[in-house]
């Protein structure tokens, strides 16, 4: 009797111990984009993508899509390096870049003073403005949406919410409401639990199609950022010049514009590589 129990236990335990062997056959989503030439170092770069931000990056049917992704894929093919795309949520992605777990970070990343201290950036390829969105049929215009005790939503931990808080510091009478995702904020906006919402231009155009909202105004001054790719401080692998050259090539051959119109649409004009004015970032 004991022998039977023991042999059964032996079988179960062996099975449990053997099963992890199948685990190492991979689980993370790897998208190797083979280049024409392998770099002398033979290094496979890890590009981190925050796939939560259409139209810049999203994950559909098992693959990464989006403006950021397509631009990077084109540059990778052009320059011949080997890259593995890794999907990390934004909170983990930025420290992972600092710690060297990924070599580059893409995901509509904004050039801000605080980030400049710990991360190096490529040349910006777009300048993003903020939109103030209100519910369709709302009486708010851009002035009333941002005053009079109005409840304004912004993505928590992002530049939108920081901007709202900076407004509060300047004694603007609003209540800043953080939301973890834009979807939750938009649902509340439609339901009337918040009066307005701050969102980025490119993303907002997408929301306009899906939700019952309209644009109250566009923020030019005070909320305008360059969109860049982030690289580890010190840029040990010279990725910045590689990406910058790639961006320039894409723009000059017209491929950038073609991707732009295809993915982001024609409501906004693509801007192409912009000069990186380090001196003016932190005043």
């Amino acid at each position: 009797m004991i022998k039977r129990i023991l042999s059964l236990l032996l079988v179960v335990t062996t099975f449990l111990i053997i099963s992890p062997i199948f685990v190492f056959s991979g689980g993370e989503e790897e998208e190797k984009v083979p280049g024409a030439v392998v770099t002398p170092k033979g290094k496979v770069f890890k590009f981190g993508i925050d796939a939560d931000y259409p139209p810049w990056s999203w994950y559909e049917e098992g693959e990464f899509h989006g403006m950021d992704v397509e631009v990077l894929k084109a540059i990778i093919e052009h320059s011949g390096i080997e890259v593995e795309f890794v999907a990390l949520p934004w909170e983990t992605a930025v420290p992972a870049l600092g710690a060297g777990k990924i070599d580059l970070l893409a995901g509509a990343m904004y050039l801000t003073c605080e980030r400049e201290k710990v991360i190096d950036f490529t040349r910006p390829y777009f300048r993003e403005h903020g939109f103030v969105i209100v519910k369709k049929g709302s009486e708010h215009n851009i002035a009333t949406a941002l005053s009079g005790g109005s409840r304004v939503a912004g993505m928590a931990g992002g530049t939108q919410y920081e901007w709202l808080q900076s407004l509060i510091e300047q004694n603007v009478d609003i209540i800043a409401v953080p939301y973890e995702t834009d979807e939750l904020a938009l649902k509340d906006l439609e339901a009337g639990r918040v009066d307005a919402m701050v969102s980025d231009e490119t993303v907002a155009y997408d929301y306009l199609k899906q939700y019952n909202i309209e644009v109250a105004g566009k923020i030019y001054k005070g909320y305008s950022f360059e969109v860049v790719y982030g690289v580890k401080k010190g840029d040990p692998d010279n990725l910045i010049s590689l990406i910058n050259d790639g961006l320039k090539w894409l723009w000059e051959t017209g491929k950038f514009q073609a991707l732009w119109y295809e993915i982001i649409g024609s409501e906004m004009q693509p801007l192409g590589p912009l000069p990186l004015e380090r001196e003016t970032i932190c005043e």
Partner: protein
Amino acid sequence: MENCCSYYYNMDILIKEYKSLLTGALIVLEVATGHLTLGFVIGLLLAAMQVYGNRFISFTAITIQKVLRGIPALVLLMLVYFGLTSLIDMSPVVVAIIALGLRSSAYQSQVFRGGIQAIESGQREAALSIGMSRLMTIRLIIFPQALRLVIGPWTNIFTMEVKDVSLAYSIGVLELLRRGRFIIRYTHGNAMLIYCTVAVFYFIIVRIGNTLLYRLEDKLLIPGFERRGGKK
């Protein structure tokens, strides 16, 4: 813009994305199996150290499992991801298995300890009195009976730990929940549908595991012995 984020309503999106979701479910199974096994082995070791070790060994074991139980799983994941991987390079799946496995071992060791101690006193004396060595006693008498008692509580741990796997999204493991959220994100909707699907997947996994464990408990049942935490 129409090309960018086309949206689907109702079942179309499931048909389109079923492969991704299925892969996500398989990854959940992979990580769950891996980390439960790791937790099993380490948990057994910790339990043995605690019950049979001298004061120093058992103190070490107790401290280890207290620490591992006291840290939130997410924090442990981050510690292993940023800490351990700076020494050796590991894929996020392995990191998840190690971190969650360590944490699970703490819980499992307590369950094993309870089982061993329940059998321990009476049976050990009886075995020693008929001349069995200490090692023989542990191997042939105590462990088999203890493991039998342990299956009930272990089912609880299994249920808990499968659900903890979703935390691995934070280090880049594209498991079921994360994939579901991706879909909601780019389709700007379908939240109810996707989350219900994810819930069903998890429920199926947990249910199948529970059923298998109950069957195992049935097979090992000794008539007259109490069954812990199972169905009557």
